[in-house]
Structures are given as structure tokens and as C-alpha cells.
């Protein structure tokens, strides 16, 4: 599982050089190996549809639906009313309120400081204060 994850992380590092076909294949492989890890999140009781794997110190807001097939890296924050499925979020990421992410990858240290976004089949990067500032690459 970690092997695919580090390959995906490497591939999604640089906005200009993403090999989408490799990422899709690796994601599929990664999700077949994904198992639950839910014991160390911070927050109330969100809805989890397994498999969901949370690294340490993930913060989750109210009325959040996570899964199936979701990995969230350490120290990331998911705010209220968010829905995430078939998605990999790397470490130290902030996702604003009412985001809906389906089949996405969010690159390490990304921070989306705004609310309301519906994204499918996309890699998301960087620090964005609004939807217009968001850097994405669709697949």
C-alpha cells in the first residue's frame, strides 16, 4: 500500500509534470490494498464508509462523509459538511467547508481556504484563497 502511495505522491508533486495514466492505474491498485485505520482522528463522529485510512492527527469537522476508498495524510484538516470518496489527500492539507471530492488527489501542503467546491477526477494543488486561484489537473 505505502509503495503505491509514495509513487503517487512523487507523480503528483510537480504541477507541470504529471503522468495522468500512471496515476489512475496506481490509484486503482492502491485502493484494492487499502484497509481501515480510524483510531487517531480529532473531531466528532463523522460518517465513514470503509475502507478509510487516516494518518495521525487528522482533524475532521461536523457532518462529514468520508469513504469508501479514502486516504488522508497526517495533520490534514477536513472542515464541516465535506464529502470525500475514492480520494487520496496527502499530509498537511486543509480542505474548506462543503467540498465534495470524488476520485481526486490533493497534493501535500495544499490549503484551500474557501468553501463550496465540487471536484471529480482531478489532482488539486497549492494554496488557494478562492476557487479561481485553485490549480488543478483533470484526469
Amino acid at each position, binding site marked *: 500500500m505505502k509503495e503505491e502511495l509514495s509513487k503517487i505522491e512523487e507523480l503528483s508533486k510537480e504541477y507541470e509534470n504529471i503522468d495522468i495514466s500512471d496515476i489512475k492505474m496506481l490509484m486503482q491498485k492502491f485502493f484494492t490494498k487499502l484497509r*481501515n485505520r480510524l483510531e487517531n482522528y480529532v473531531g466528532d*463522529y463523522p460518517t*465513514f464508509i470503509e475502507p478509510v485510512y487516516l494518518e495521525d492527527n487528522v482533524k475532521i469537522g461536523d457532518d462529514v462523509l468520508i469513504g469508501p476508498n479514502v486516504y488522508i495524510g497526517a495533520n490534514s484538516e477536513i472542515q464541516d459538511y465535506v464529502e470525500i*470518496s475514492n480520494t487520496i489527500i496527502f499530509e498537511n492539507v486543509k480542505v474548506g467547508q462543503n467540498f465534495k471530492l470524488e476520485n481526486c488527489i490533493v497534493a501535500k501542503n495544499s490549503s484551500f481556504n474557501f468553501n463550496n467546491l465540487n471536484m471529480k477526477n482531478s489532482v488539486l494543488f497549492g494554496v488557494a484563497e478562492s476557487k479561481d486561484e485553485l490549480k488543478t489537473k483533470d484526469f
Partner: protein
Amino acid sequence: MSEKNQKTVSRIKEVESTNLAPDNIRNEVIETKKAVEKDNDLLAERIHQNFKEHNVKSFDIVGAIGAGKTALLETISQRLTTKYRVLVICGDITTRVDADRIEKHNAETIQINTGRECALNAYHIHQIIKNKDLNKYDIVFIENVGNLICPSDFILGTDQRIIIVSITEGEWVVEKHPMLFKMSDIAVINKIDLKERLGTNVDKMISDAKKINPNIKVITTSAKTGENVEKLMSLMGF
């Protein structure tokens, strides 16, 4: 009284006179409620179609906390997995206790932790189904969150709904929760092995279920001793 307190008191008076929502948002609340129900039914229909297209038999198991839903699913899975490929979706507020118990009987399991939601809905099931190859299964059981009230708000698109109560809940449990009996195909009265000891009026429970829903099939079982489990399975079509 401070201005802030006065405002709170007058707001309480306003809210006291309304059941659903204050006048200014009442219509919006009603429309939202109707839309949610309609969307759930649409998704449930889609799920049912999906099951049918793949020749998967499907059951929604509802019942109170501790009625024996998991225990019955354990014993049924044990019998069915020798012949069929079984997927069990388990709904619980938190933990993987039920899924772990059932998995020991060779069924594949998926746990949904609903957090603070008191029932599974069609969206939860749809999220799972769309990520699964249904050709790999013959039977799907959905063990709903333990609750005799909320699951009546959300159909899940299964072929049949089975309601499980037990005689330890008292002989009034059926008549006190009519809605789910109205919406179910089979009513199971479990823990029948304790009948003599508890003295529960089981005949009343059976006649109450029939009164509420004349079409419902009622059976008494014991997941512990295995009494009538085979009969229940034959009512389910096995």
C-alpha cells in the same frame, strides 16, 4: 432584563408556536424534506435495478439494538457461504464489531460507521455498490443501524426488508413501532429460547404484526439454539 435576554425570550415564544419551522423558512424546510425523500427513493430504485441486473438477492435487516440482527446474520451466513458468495454491509454508529463477527463466517463485510446518523440511507449503499463488481456476489445483506424508528424514513432498494425484534424487548414492542412492520416483508421474533423464563406473550406480538401488516410473514427464532433458522431462510427464498 437585558436587551439580549429579551430578544432570546421573544424568539423562544416564536419557536414555541411552531412544530416544523418558523413561518419565514417553513416552505423551504418542507421542500428540502420532500427533495431528500425523493432523492433517496430514486437512488434506492437504481440500487434495486443494479442488484436485479446482476442476479443478486438483497435484504435490508432492521431491528432494535440487541434484538439479534448480527447473531442471526452470523448463523445465516455460516449456512449460506458454503453455497453462495455473500456480502454483508453493516451499519453502526461506530466500531467494526459486527463486521468482524460476521466475517468469521466467510462472508465479505463492509462496515459503515454512521457517526451520529440513526439509519443507513440509499446514498451510503450506492457509494458502496458503485465501487463493487456485483458479479462477484450472489447475496447482499444490509444490516441497518440498531433502531426501530429512523430506518422507516429511508428505503435502501433491497428485494426484501426483514424486521427483527426479540422477546426481551417486551410484548408491546411490535404495536409501539408499527411503521417498520408496515414496510417489512418478514418479521422475526428472536430469542424464543427465553420464552418460558420471561413469560412474554409471543402470540400477542405475532397478532400485532399481522394486524399492522396482513401480508407480513412472521416467524419465531432463536439465533442461539438455531431454532427455526432454516425456516426463516426458506421464507427468504433459500
